[in-house]
């Protein structure tokens, strides 16, 4: 594994370009699906960040006259049972999803990196112990693990992030550990050691940057799965509680009550989840092709 040189990689691929925009343009032509994904993800992030500007109504304020209002007019996507504007709720829901996706991926990622680096670099009994712990955690499907975690922590935004992050740890730790193991014996690490660099510094300065590419690929994939897991947890009543407009929770309420009388309450939050996850998946695929040629699909 070598240090990634993006410019060189681009040049090799035939891109005779410099500057951010032209490089982006080249990549978009080469990976059209990835570009679509990037746009979807960008839209999602912008919606989340500017939710207060975009949303025409307060997502929490109720209105008895608008109960189950049909889409169109004042309420573009209709209103829920309590007369809350669906569009505004979906827009604010992006914030929740983004918070959960980024929060869980980062938390899981950081824990995974620390564990993976330590386990790969220090080795010995520590490696053995963490490997077994990772085995144990991976012996349950992601949703089951998250379900048990969410139940034991109780419903809240923070706890949901933790409940989703923990099950993500083993896969990150494994990737980092295996990279670390192969890097540990590389000449430049040996050299660093020879000039008396501390182990931790070596790990952080030399080993970590070289595991970044697979980590980014893995992280993007995990963004989507974190969003889906949150939706499933909230759907089952164990994730984000009311009154936060979580997409999954919105679905669970409407699925139980309004499949027939107000189908738009079931359709729109689902579309929001699907498009967002679809975007991260498209982007993830393209990133993998760019950053990690060995796993090319």
């Amino acid at each position, binding site marked *: 594994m070598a240090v990634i040189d993006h410019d060189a990689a681009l040049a090799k691929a035939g891109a005779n370009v410099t500057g951010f925009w032209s490089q982006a343009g080249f990549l978009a032509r080469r990976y059209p699906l990835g570009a679509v994904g990037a746009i979807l993800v960008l839209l999602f992030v912008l919606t989340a960040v500017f939710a207060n500007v975009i949303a025409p109504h307060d997502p929490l304020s*109720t209105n008895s006259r608008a109960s189950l209002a049909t889409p169109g007019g004042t309420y573009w996507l209709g209103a829920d049972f*309590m007369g809350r504007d669906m569009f505004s709720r979906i827009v604010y829901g992006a914030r929740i999803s983004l918070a959960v996706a980024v929060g869980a991926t980062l938390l899981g990622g950081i824990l995974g990196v620390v564990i993976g680096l330590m386990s790969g670099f220090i080795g010995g009994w520590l490696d053995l112990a963490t490997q077994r712990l990772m085995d144990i955690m991976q012996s349950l499907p992601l949703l089951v693990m998250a379900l048990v975690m969410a139940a034991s922590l109780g419903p809240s935004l923070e706890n949901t992030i933790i409940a989703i992050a923990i099950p993500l740890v083993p896969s990150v730790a494994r990737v980092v550990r295996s990279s670390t193991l192969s890097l540990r014996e590389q000449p430049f690490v040996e050299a660093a050691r020879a000039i008396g660099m501390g182990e931790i510094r070596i790990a952080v300065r030399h080993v970590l940057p070289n595991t970044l590419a697979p980590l980014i690929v893995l992280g993007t994939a995990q963004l989507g799965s974190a969003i889906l897991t949150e939706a499933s947890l909230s759907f089952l009543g164990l994730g984000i509680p009311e009154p936060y407009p979580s997409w999954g929770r919105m679905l669970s309420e409407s699925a139980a*009550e309004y499949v027939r009388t107000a189908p738009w309450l079931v359709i729109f939050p689902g579309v929001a989840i699907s498009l967002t996850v679809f975007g991260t998946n498209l982007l993830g695929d393209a990133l993998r092709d760019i950053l990690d040629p060995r796993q090319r699909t």
Partner: protein
Amino acid sequence: MRNRLAIIAGGLAAAVVISAPAFAQKQGGTLRVSHRDNPPSASIHEEATISVNMPFMSVFNNLVFFDPKEKINSPDKIVPELAESWSWNDNKTKLTFKLRNGVKWHDGKPFSSKDVKCTWDALRGGDDKQEMIRKNPRKVWYKNLKEVTTNGDNEVTFTLEREQPSFLSMLAAGYAPVYPCHVDSRVMRSKPIGTGPFKVAEFKRNEGIKLVRNPDYWKKGRPYLDAIEFKIVPNRSTRVLGFVAGEYDLTFDSDITFPLLKDVKDQKKDAICEARPTNVHTNLLVNRDAPPFDNPKLREALVYSLDRAPFSDILTQGNDLRGATMLPPPAGVWGMTQDELQKLPGFGPDIEKNREIARGLMKELGYGPDKPLKIKVSTRNIAIYRDPAVILIDQLKQIYIEAELEPIDTTIWYNKVQQKNYQVGMNLTGAGLDDPDGVFYENFYSTSDRNYTGYKNPEIDKMIDEQSAMTDVNKRKAMVTKIEQALLKDAARPPITHGVANTCWAPAVKNLVLQHNSIYNGWRLEDVWLDK
């Protein structure tokens, strides 16, 4: 040819119509009912939810019973069941029942006065006699019951501490079945034994409950149905679809909300739907033992802040009833009239004026538009609790209160309330019996287990005891109104609205009478038959 067929068919129909009175009730058939969730257990005495009463009431009998043919439960409409007759002694403290002969439990053992004694000894909370039940939510109903004595196998006497006219009503409620002495409490929770018209054939979690006809039922010719099947379907949309598609003959009690009613009527034109009060009302729990609501002025402001119309409009499209703690007339026997109600604090029609009062109180306490009071509104994390809480939070903004919803895991809700670990709670209170003794003792008496706000007011206790002993109904009603006023003034669970909901059935279901002042009574189902 077609004409001839039509004529034949017409003739047949005429024949059926003519002969109908003779064979009015048909024997047989299975009544299929949708059920909303897993009942916590099958033991009526241990639970407090319609999820248990609706499927399991027909397994049991009471000593006496509210006349199932009447829509309104009232003390003068009580009929005998396992008791053939009853009588009071002169000072009205001894109630003696003559019991029916030859009644058998579903396991073949004979029913006797010992079973009655066993049941009420357990309910009374006698120290050693609690093996029959392990939870006793309505212990306070029998607070005034001194002892139960038997005289031979067919006579039993209930001795009261003092006169209590409502006592017979409590025995007539769905929550007062007679349990067998000889059956283990674990069995009563999973596959109970009763004397009732139906036996439990199966109780499977997540699937359903199957009851079959008790061939040895003491009431000859009853029940009509061969079996009743309750299918557990947690998703309401799915239940409604199932009913519309003809998979169920009867919906779960009060399952059809008003937004759904139109849909049901559109999809199933022949469905019979009846709207009735549930005698379940939304109310506020106010933690008076901790800041900030230990301040009576703040509690008063809360009472004046409520606009009940939006609650009713959103939750039941305006069909909810306005009332205080007791269910209002006409369905309610003891509630205040709308005129009386309007005089209560916060119930007046001029909402703006009420809120002006509330804002004035808030300003006195130093709050204002720039300095709002920040609180949490806690509630059980299920829709019927959460929805009104969200509306409440929206309304509190009007009186400088910025509230945040705190949804509590439904499993630790009472725990949290009991530990006084909340500020304001949104709560639902259901009345198993439309009677001031039932309602007041259960929810406001200082020693009650279901008074989980720990409301303690010696004056209220005294008034509750006082009305309980009154024999003159009109005087008692006046006392009840006085109690309601005092409770509201003290912001002890300020009531918001009384629920109304629809129950629907297929036209083939005959003789089903829904009771309009308690959903927990009237599910004996022995007179129901299917015209199929």
